């Protein structure tokens, strides 16, 4: 049996254009992979109090023992110090990134330093090629960058092409990293860290076989998971309408964020539901490598050229629930074509849709309240639903065209300390809010999650399934979910498959991968990894005491009624006690 290469970690220094590989069985044996290993590598490599855009801030990518072996183990975990929150940055993405990294004979990749000129890295079977990217730097659209790299690099079908757009080059604090055109390490500004390192793209390819301990057992458990993924009700919503399925149901219960949470009703929501988009625009469905579910939904938008008859362009624009929330309902946009055009621009610049949408919503409210004028917006009258203005404003943010847009490029928390409106600057722990106003579970989840993301602990699901809990109960429920998710993100399994990957299934899979763990060991490991993340956060200055609760979320009715500040503060206090 060939030896598994999972424990191989590649260290790349983009300052010196140097690299070396180390066996880190010490980390992989204890923490399995993914988040568990990444937080260790980040703690080792990131200098204490490192400035996010300095050479001392590393980028860590990690996969896990199930990557390349089982379906839906299709994600890569990225860790770095976030420029947006000034603390732990963690972002996950799929596409072909996970399979490519594992097939390249690596379990993790660490990128350090800062290049003096634009470069892109090409990693083939674990060997690093440093390439000049001066010609790619400054290109208007990330789509074109992808096209050029696709045609110049080998390994089609067996590689990942991660790249940044203009947002990353400009170090917009919430710039994302795009992979395989339609997937993103979207949150917390990984794209900006790439930009600060003058790293335009990262291509990883390779071919590597992964050994299993018992071929027959491997096939049996594989078939069980595959059948679940393709035939059970568990995954149906993801492959039929995709995540956009949530727009209708959340809108009906008033759990969909609308116009910076000024209201909880939106008449036009029906025009941007998953059902409407699928029936009128869905052009193609695609999948991440090794995921038969294919949740990625892409609209085909056919637009006539105004000045030339019988001339059309058809563009393929991805849509997901979070994009529809942030660039649709949050901005009062109910025109599906307008929303798709805004999404297309956001994608072309490679900026996180959620943060961008929340920033534009905040700016709109500032403008409406007269706290800024056309002097700040450079003549743009920001109005709910006016997607054309939002595209213009977006361009101004990307170019950091004046002091106002430059500040907006730093996120709503920083912008509100300059322009005011802290009450309606909707960020949690410095991260712009995700698309759920379902009740206290969602908000507390954002506040206490290690990434301040809805995916940390699924508070929105607690709201919908369990209603309002006592603070202590809610904290226990959320933290216990977040602990289990550390296991999934260390394997690394897509969170959409959490219904399939029960602790029992995970144990069976791990046996095939030669990494046996009993239920208690997994439970303990989940707790440990989450504690390690908070240890890093505290090392970098995080404190539960300084978490800001925007007044707006207390003013608006949620499906669970109004929420009191005392309740939220009690929850934060409980969480602080837990992590003490």
């Amino acid at each position, binding site marked *: 049996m060939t030896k598994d290469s999972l424990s191989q970690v590649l260290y790349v220094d983009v300052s010196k254009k140097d690299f070396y590989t180390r066996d880190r069985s010490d980390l992989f044996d204890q923490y399995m992979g993914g988040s568990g290993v990444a937080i260790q590598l980040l703690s080792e490599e990131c200098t204490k109090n490192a400035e996010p855009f300095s050479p001392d801030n590393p980028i860590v990518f990690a996969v896990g023992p199930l990557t*390349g072996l089982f379906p839906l183990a299709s994600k890569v975990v990225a860790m770095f110090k976030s420029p947006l929150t000034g603390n732990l940055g963690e972002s996950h993405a799929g596409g072909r990134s996970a399979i490519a990294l594992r*097939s390249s004979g690596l379990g993790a990749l660490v990128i350090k330093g800062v290049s003096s000129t634009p470069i892109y890295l090409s990693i083939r079977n674990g060997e690093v090629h440093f390439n000049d990217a001066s010609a790619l730097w400054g290109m208007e659209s990330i789509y074109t960058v992808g096209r050029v790299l*696709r045609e110049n690099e080998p390994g089609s079908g*067996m590689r990942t092409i991660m790249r940044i757009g203009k947002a990353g080059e400009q170090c917009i604090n919430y710039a994302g990293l795009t992979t395989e*055109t339609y997937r993103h390490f979207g949150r917390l500004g990984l794209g900006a860290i790439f930009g600060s390192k003058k790293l335009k793209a990262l291509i990883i390819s390779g071919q590597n*076989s992964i050994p299993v301990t018992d071929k027959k057992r491997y096939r049996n458990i594989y078939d069980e998971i595959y059948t679940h993924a393709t035939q059970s009700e568990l995954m149906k919503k993801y492959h039929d309408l995709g995540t956009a399925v949530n727009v209708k149901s959340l809108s009906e219960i008033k759990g969909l964020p609308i116009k910076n949470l000024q209201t909880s009703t939106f008449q036009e929501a029906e025009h941007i539901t998953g059902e409407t988009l699928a029936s009128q625009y869905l052009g*193609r469905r695609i999948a991440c490598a090794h995921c*038969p579910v*294919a949740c990625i939904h892409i609209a085909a938008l056919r637009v006539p050229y105004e000045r030339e008859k019988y001339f059309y362009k058809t563009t393929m624009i991805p849509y997901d629930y979070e994009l529809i929330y942030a660039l649709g309902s949050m901005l009062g946009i109910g025109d599906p074509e307008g929303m798709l055009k805004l999404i297309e621009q956001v994608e072309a610049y490679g900026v996180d849709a959620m943060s961008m949408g929340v920033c534009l919503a905040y700016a709109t409210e500032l403008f409406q309240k007269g706290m800024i004028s056309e002097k700040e917006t450079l003549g743009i009258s920001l109005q709910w639903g006016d997607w054309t203005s939002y595209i213009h404003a977006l361009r101004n943010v990307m170019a950091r065209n004046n002091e106002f847009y430059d500040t907006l490029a730093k996120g709503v928390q920083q912008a509100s300390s300059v322009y005011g409106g802290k009450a309606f600057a909707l960020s949690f722990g410095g991260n712009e809010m995700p698309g759920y106003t379902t009740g206290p579970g969602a908000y507390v989840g954002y506040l206490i999650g290690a990434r301040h993301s809805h995916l940390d602990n699924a508070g929105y699901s607690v709201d919908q399934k369990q209603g309002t809990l006592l603070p202590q109960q809610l904290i226990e429920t959320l933290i216990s979910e977040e602990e289990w998710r550390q296991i999934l993100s260390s394997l690394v399994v897509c969170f959409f498959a959490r219904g399939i990957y029960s602790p029992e299934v995970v144990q069976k899979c791990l046996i095939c991968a030669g990494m046996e763990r009993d239920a208690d060991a997994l439970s303990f490991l989940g707790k440990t990894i989450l504690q390690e993340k908070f240890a890093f956060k505290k090392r970098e200055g995080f404190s539960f005491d300084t978490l800001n609760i925007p007044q707006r979320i207390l003013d608006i009715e949620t499906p669970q009624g109004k929420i009191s500040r005392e309740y939220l503060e009690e929850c934060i206090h409980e969480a602080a006690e837990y992590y003490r």
Partner: protein
Amino acid sequence: MMRVTIVDAERCVGCQSCMFACARRHGTGGLLNSAILIRSAGGMERGFKVIVCRACPDPPCAKVCPTHALVPRKDGGITLHADECIGCGNCVDECIFNAIFWNPEKNKPVVCMYCGYCTEFCPHDVIAHEKKGKNEKKGKEEKMEKQVSITRGETA
């Protein structure tokens, strides 16, 4: 006559489950031993190409094999006699569909064995296992009985 046929590449979502199935047939994870490749048709927005041996009746790959390691089958396609192979790679260059793959660890080609295992893992019936010139059974229907034979007779 048995081979893997492409029913409708437009339905392909690019999940590559077929590729993993092919590699798993050898009892390994990863993609090194896959004899089928799914790649984008010039960006994922354009959909996917399915590249797999089409079992040519008069296979050009066998004609350029200097050691007769690739032997034409009676009903089309080829059989690899790995012991005879010297790893020259002529077959890879000759296949106009690029459907012969390479295992650099063994320095030998990876060729389709027409077993149809991959078709059982296509969630959208993009590919099918064709027998005797027509589609007797489609991938999924065939799955159960096939699984038994595969797990019994461990293939190479």
